[in-house]
């Protein structure tokens, strides 16, 4: 049930987010969008479990990457982003979830919308698309507070230049880059209309972010004519103190 993964690489993505590469000798493979549960145990028997989306492409490698954002007072995320070292072992369970996934067989246009670290499972979809050499049209709308908070920034800025069927749009809620045409603000109806597939394309939409973000974006997508059946969501927020 619980597998043991060995940390083989650590990479800082931003000032608060770190990507952890884990070697898992018996990993069965995963589908883009799936997550793992990570369990930390203390010698006194206390344990804490948190869910993290897999960031790496669906492939046959016996390695996965997760990207962890450090949360204020997050006992697990603080450990994973600050104390964990190469060679350490982590207990994890997965791959988990068959709903919020993109499979390379899907041929319909895809709309990805991320809020903050909600980009992680969507990046797995983008990477899986690339790994499979799929030309399925993808659009990503990625909302972040400020430019320095963008995860996978170099890849996300480079990819659309190499591949015209992948469109990436950023939206900034607090601080915008110099000469950015849009003032800082949350995703609104105008941005949905200009940066996402028209509803008539019946794109499958994947939205991942904090609960309020997902709620508001789902409403906007519905308002402009997208059907509920085509929208898949993954909210994240405070997790329970599960043992």
């Amino acid at each position: 049930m619980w597998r043991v993964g060995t940390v083989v690489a650590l990479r800082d993505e931003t000032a608060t987010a770190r990507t952890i590469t884990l070697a898992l000798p018996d990993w069965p493979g995963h589908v883009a969008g799936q997550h793992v549960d990570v369990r930390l145990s203390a010698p006194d028997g206390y344990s804490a479990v948190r869910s993290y989306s897999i960031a790496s492409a669906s492939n046959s490698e016996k390695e996965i990457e997760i990207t962890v954002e450090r949360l204020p007072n997050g006992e697990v995320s603080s450990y994973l982003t600050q104390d964990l070292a190469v060679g350490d072992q982590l207990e994890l369970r997965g791959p988990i979830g068959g709903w919020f996934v993109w499979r390379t067989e899907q041929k319909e246009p895809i709309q990805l919308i991320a809020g903050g670290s909600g980009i992680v499972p969507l990046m797995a979809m983008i990477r899986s698309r690339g790994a499979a050499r799929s030309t399925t049209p993808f659009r990503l709308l990625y909302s972040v507070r400020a430019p320095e908070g963008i995860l996978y920034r170099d890849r996300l800025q480079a990819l659309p230049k190499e591949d015209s069927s992948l469109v990436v749009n950023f939206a900034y809620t607090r601080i915008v880059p110099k000469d950015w045409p849009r003032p800082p603000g949350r995703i609104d109806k105008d941005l949905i209309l200009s940066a996402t597939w028209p509803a008539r394309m019946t794109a499958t939409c994947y939205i991942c972010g904090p609960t309020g973000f997902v709620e508001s974006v789902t409403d906007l997508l519905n308002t402009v004519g997208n059907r509920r059946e085509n929208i898949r969501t993954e909210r994240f927020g405070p997790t329970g103190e599960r043992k």
Partner: protein
Amino acid sequence: MTLQTYSYSYLDGNAAAGELNRIFAVDVTTAKGECVNCGAERHFAEAHLYVQCPGIVARCALCGHVLLRLVDAGDRMLLDVRGITYFSVKMPQTQASNG
């Protein structure tokens, strides 16, 4: 431990997949279930999931009725599915065994 004010924000039914996999042989978050209260038939993944409690509680995304409760009580799991009339589970395709 200090008393905290919880915002009661929720997750999606997807987030329960890990815990439910401990009991079920297939991923029931992709199954459709019918709400006892309002009759909506939706994927379990679309339910609203509350985890800031001594277990997990799934509520119907449409009417808010409790669909499922799951508690890990150490040596046993307690599962209450009284809010779901039925599950419609798409089974993984297996190799055809008959000619």
